[in-house]
């Protein structure tokens, strides 16, 4: 994992001191709320419906055990004993008190963490494939580049006051687990025809009220030109982005209004003007960063573990968990463990301090001290010996973390919605809980197979509903919550935007509608056909007919 250098350490500490002074001045009245608001937002502190909310950055979703224990400590000491992992691989605390926040930031700085640029019209936390460095299908580990972008974008003077917030995602694999097409800039490490590794660069993707998929502006970009090319994109956006209208200010609108071809032409034109060697760090700096992401020292193991096979044969629950939650590692004898934060009927993405500590202990003892946060609001132990899997599972079970539902119907993404969020128009968590209970029987979930249900409590789409195989958007009409359903969305390498199937449903009937959609799929699917494949073959009509005939 990357470790702060002297500059990082000094800079983060200075920001804590600065914010402590700002909070003191706010409490004393020297600063008005109007003056203070932009300052607190720059440090990730929102005022939500019922309390302040602090959003802490988890750079490209990577944590070590010390950091996770610190997050647990903060949950206990300054919040209500839990935290909420988000769709941007961050963690949010829902109940911090204003005078405590500088102390929280001090504790975070102790473990090389902060909340800078988790809000505001700047480049936000760069997200990445949660299996980076471990996945078998990876061309190259994307994290060194994510770290490079973190350093480049932190307090970048030119890009600190953009027309709107800006999100970058990066993957090193052909299977897209980072939803790159839904980001302002999406990056995929890929091989050129002659086998050289570079980046495919996408721009103009996004969710919100106007969902759009990113377009490829460069099929292949040499790796050492990354930052210079990003600067060209940022400059075109910074200059022409719609600052006059908040709802049209994201880069997706600019790309759409100019057209992909003209946008690309302007980026390439700008790129010619950029002094690339000045922007890119010296080669030895990238080597220095890469060294931090060197693979752990693996044991030389056979890929098959007789112990694992025996445990799977003896314990059906464990075998089911391995089947859904454990995936292949590039190193023989090792596996990637996905930890579900989606217990049936639970709050998606929430983890208690005890659960955080349990995961930290497991990471330290069994996963080379590494933890990942996923954009689907789960956790990952990326480097576990296959022979350790049974013990890891037993420990997870003790802490309520062994649900064998990764990628199944109850692995639901949900934003905080109107239970917490000041922008929300409807609640989303109770809907996810209701659906989770309805479809929760594990045999039924396994029969349904891969299914991504995603719920947002307002049009801003933090719950990624546009990318849900079944997407649900909570709105309000005449004092009642109602829920619009979209079908056929996907955030993977075959990205698509879900289509609205018709009039919305009340909070009492939306779960029935989802169940009807699922049952319709089960009735019409062909052998081995997933929900998404079936929807793409059948189109919306059979689902519409079933839902609106019965509801």
């Amino acid at each position, binding site marked *: 994992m990357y470790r702060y250098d002297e500059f990082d350490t000094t800079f983060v500490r200075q920001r804590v001191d600065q914010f402590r002074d700002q909070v003191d001045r706010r409490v*004393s009245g020297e600063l008005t709320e109007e003056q203070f608001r932009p300052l607190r937002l720059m440090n990730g502190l929102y*005022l939500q*419906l*019922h309390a302040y909310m602090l959003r802490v950055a988890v750079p490209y979703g990577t944590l070590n055990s010390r950091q996770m224990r610190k997050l647990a400590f903060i949950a206990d000491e300054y919040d209500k004993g839990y935290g909420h992992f988000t769709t941007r691989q961050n963690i949010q605390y829902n109940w911090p008190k204003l005078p405590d926040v500088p102390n929280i930031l001090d504790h975070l700085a102790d473990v090389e963490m902060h909340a800078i640029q988790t809000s505001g019209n700047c480049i936000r936390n760069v997200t990445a494939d949660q299996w980076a460095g471990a996945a078998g299908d990876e061309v190259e580990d994307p994290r060194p580049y994510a770290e490079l972008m973190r350093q480049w974008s932190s307090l970048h003077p030119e890009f600190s006051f953009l027309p709107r917030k800006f999100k970058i995602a990066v993957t090193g694999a052909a299977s897209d687990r980072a939803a790159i097409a839904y980001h302002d800039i999406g990056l995929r490490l890929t091989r050129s025809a002659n086998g050289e590794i570079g980046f495919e660069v996408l721009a103009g993707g996004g969710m919100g009220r106007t969902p759009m998929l990113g377009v490829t502006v460069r099929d292949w970009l040499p790796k050492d030109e990354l930052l210079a090319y990003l600067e060209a994109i940022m400059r075109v956006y910074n200059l022409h982005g719609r600052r006059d209208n908040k709802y049209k200010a994201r880069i997706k609108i600019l790309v759409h209004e100019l057209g992909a071809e003209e946008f690309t032409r302007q980026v390439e034109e700008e790129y010619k003007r950029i002094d690339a060697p000045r922007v890119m760090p010296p080669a030895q700096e990238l080597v220095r960063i890469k060294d931090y992401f060197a693979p752990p020292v693996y044991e030389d193991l056979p890929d098959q573990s007789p112990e694992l096979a025996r445990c799977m044969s003896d314990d059906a629950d464990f075998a089911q968990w391995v089947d859904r939650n454990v995936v292949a590692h590039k190193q023989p004898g090792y596996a990637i463990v996905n930890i579900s934060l989606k217990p049936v009927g639970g709050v998606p993405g929430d983890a208690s301090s005890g659960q955080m500590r349990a995961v930290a202990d497991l990471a330290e003892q069994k996963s080379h001290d590494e933890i990942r946060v996923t954009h689907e609001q789960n956790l990952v132990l990326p480097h576990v010996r296959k022979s350790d899997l049974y013990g890891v599972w037993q420990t997870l079970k003790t802490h309520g973390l062994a649900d064998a539902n990764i990628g199944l119907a109850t692995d639901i993404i949900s934003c905080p919605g109107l239970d917490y969020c000041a922008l929300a128009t409807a609640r989303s968590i*109770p809907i996810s809980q209701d659906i989770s209970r309805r479809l929760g029987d594990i045999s039924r979930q396994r029969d349904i197979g891969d299914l991504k249900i995603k719920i947002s409590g307002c049009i801003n789409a933090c719950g990624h509903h546009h990318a849900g195989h079944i997407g649900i958007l909570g709105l309000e009409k005449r004092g*009642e919550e109602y829920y619009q359903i979209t079908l056929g969305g996907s955030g993977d390498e075959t990205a698509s935007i879900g289509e609205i199937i018709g009039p919305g449903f009340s909070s009492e009937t939306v779960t029935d509608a989802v169940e009807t959609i699922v049952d319709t799929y089960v009735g019409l699917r062909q052998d081995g056909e997933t929900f998404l494949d079936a929807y793409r073959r059948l189109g919306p009509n059979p689902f519409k007919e079933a839902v609106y005939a019965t509801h």
Partner: protein
Amino acid sequence: MAKKITGPQILTANRLSDGMVVFLSADGTWRASIDAADVARTEDSASALEARAATFVQTNEIVDPYLIAVEETDTGAVPVAFRERRRIAGPSVQAAFNGQSNGSLAFAG
């Protein structure tokens, strides 16, 4: 100029120190419960509520004060807007973690 209102109003804000939802009561204090909220039934009294709230902004006790329309029922004032009803009720989930919750796990209020 008197505040234009369409029905009874109360004044709400968030407490500066912790963001808690509070209401301006008749005795001039800010309370976490809506039950003691001072109800303005005329435009002049609504304006007076706003003026009183402004003094608490000056003394840094509360932030973002605003009037909300309520319906006066036998059991007290109930906000007209759905969002305000949810805001007052607190999260409807995770009662075990949440001091402000009404204790219901789903779809209360």
